[in-house]
């Protein structure tokens, strides 16, 4: 580590999430060189290493080129080669604020939790809410529903927007919702209507969290679930406002971590070019 390439400093942000692991490589000019996303699986440590290696390979770098590593996500404490570990709440806020400085609220719906973050223009967290009781309202909820309907999870969003008659689905518990979906199918309900109901159940839960700190706009939605158009539409309807969704919504925390890495190296005023993540 700590070698240099073309006099540039190279930093990595690693977001070791509960469902996916993300690595993002950033140089000291603020250019995102590469990134990689892997399913976390059960071999967390191996996944982190593989994910970082793949991200480095994509920009013809290796581990020895890294000058600083910041780890975040639930597995952040396992990344023992990181120079710094920070929570995904701070990193997500930081990442989003650097690419969407006007944004004041972040809805980050990840694999196993949902976070609502009130952020200032410098990327500092003013206040936040995190789901507590269960995974209803998270990516895991959608995975369970997709499984019980026999549909790939990435197709749920497209299916939801074809719905003509949204069915109410409970959001009290992810596992109970799964059994509710089975009952609805047995009663002949259309898959698209059920999925739209599930998206609405997630949105309802999120709106409850938003209410706890008060709606702030503009809003960015990120995390894996932001890829689901059905959830995005349901959120916009419930919040009565349009939301911004980056093209790579899963990478905001890794980006924030990498930016913090640059700052730790003394690059405090770097303007990050995040075009490849947001457009």
């Amino acid at each position, binding site marked *: 580590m700590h070698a240099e390439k073309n006099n540039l400093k190279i930093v990595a942000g690693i977001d070791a999430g509960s469902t996916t692991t993300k690595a993002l490589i950033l140089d000291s000019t603020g250019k995102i060189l590469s990134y990689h996303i892997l399913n976390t699986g059960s071999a967390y440590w191996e996944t982190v290493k593989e994910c970082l290696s793949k991200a480095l390979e994509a920009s013809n770098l290796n581990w020895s080129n890294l000058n600083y590593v910041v780890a975040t996500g639930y597995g952040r404490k396992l990344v023992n080669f990181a120079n710094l570990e920070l929570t995904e*709440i701070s990193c997500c806020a930081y990442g989003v604020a650097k690419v969407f400085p006007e944004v004041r609220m972040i809805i980050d719906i990840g694999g196993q939790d949902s976070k609502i973050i009130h952020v200032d223009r410098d990327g500092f967290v003013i206040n936040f809410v995190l789901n507590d009781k269960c995974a209803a309202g998270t990516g895991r909820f959608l995975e369970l529903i997709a499984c019980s309907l026999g549909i790939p999870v990435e197709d749920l969003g497209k299916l939801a927007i074809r719905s003509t008659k949204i069915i109410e689905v409970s959001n009290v518990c992810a596992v109970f919702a799964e059994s509710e979906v089975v009952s609805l199918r047995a009663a002949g309900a259309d898959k698209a209507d059920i999925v739209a109901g599930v998206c609405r159940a997630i949105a309802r839960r999120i709106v409850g969290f938003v209410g706890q700190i008060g709606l702030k706009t503009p809003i960015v939605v990120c995390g894996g679930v932001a890829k689901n158009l059905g959830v995005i539409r349901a959120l916009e309807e419930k919040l009565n406002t349009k939301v911004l969704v980056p093209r790579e919504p899963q990478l905001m925390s890794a980006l924030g971590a990498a930016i913090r890495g640059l700052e730790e190296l003394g690059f405090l005023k770097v303007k990050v070019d995040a075009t490849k993540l947001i457009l």
Partner: protein
Amino acid sequence: MNSKEYRLNRLETTKLVGKIFDKHWAELREAKQKGEKVAWCSGPTVFFPQSQGIKSHFMAGYSAYCAGRGAAEQVLEAAEAAGELSETCSYHRLHTGMVHAVLTGYRVKEEVILPIPDLFIIGRLCPEMSHYAEALFRRLGKKVKVVGVDLPPPRKVEDLEALGEFVENQIREVLIPAIEELTGKEFDYEALRGKWDLLKKIAEVRNKCWEFFKLKPTPWTLWDYGVGMGFLFYAIKPEGLEYWNKVYEELKERAKNNVPAILPDGEKYRLYWDNWIPWAFLGKTIRLLVKYGAVPIFGRYPYEFFPHPEYINLSKDPIKTWVDLFYVKAKQAAIMMPEFAYETIAKHVEEYRIDGIIFFSTRTCRMWNAGQREILNRIEREYGIPGVIIEADMVDSRFFNEAQIELRLQTLFEMIDARRKK
């Protein structure tokens, strides 16, 4: 990675507490064995049977003791074996579990066994208390006399005077006659006055100790304070005064020599702890905090243990003194009222130079949680001090998730760091 190693430097005096409270609870069992009367009490009613010489249990104090002795899980299991729902108040469940254990021989640690009472005094601070009383009455074959005293929380400070009168009437017309009937003698008002006298002395020493929380670095933690709180409520006894005098002496010594509660050189973050103390998880919680150099300094629940001894007027009717303490003058009953709670927390945040607030939100006691989110938002807005809500429980381990708690705590510390950078 994040480097500095912090270590807790607990007050030596706190190590004396365990034996004293073991003895306190053993005395209840011994009294029963000797054929003496025993009472179980909830809410601030325990002073009355104790003044009449009845060995008396106090619901929250026993729950804290049971958890501190590592027996909560066993007793909660006993409650569920007896059909108790896991969503009810965990303190309530500890007691139904204990009744089940005593009646059926369900194995629990010997030192936490409670004798079956001759009288239940139910200070109804919340709706759950009615269920608690009824559940125990039914499980004990409808043989134990139950006396209820309604202690409704005020909605606004102006309610306190009328509420005080309302409760005072119940004490005089229902509680005192029940105690007299059980013991066959007139109520000992002088003994109650003597209890206030001793409480006043203990609370005055404790208040002097609180002053040390204002030091930076602090020489002690809220946990050091918490383990001796029983002496200010259900165990008002000469050993309590002796104990608090020793705490004061140790604090003076630490302050003189600049010895911090967190080694090597004191705390990085000074925290306010709102709500119940997590009795079954004191060690786990303090380790999590100390790892980051954080220390709980003060808190709303620990504060309510008679913060105003100046209102104890020994020349007054001792029942009026109770009313002054809980309602009219010291206003302790208002502490759960969101507006009063906000004012209390805001005052403490300034007095104790707090960096961040942990709002401990208990899964099975919602009464103390009322208004926490609004208070958090308002303190952040008006004082720029961040807060975090941690949802867990006082004693039930099923509601205590260390990874979830640590994520919230670490975020709080990062929020404090960010504010310091600005």
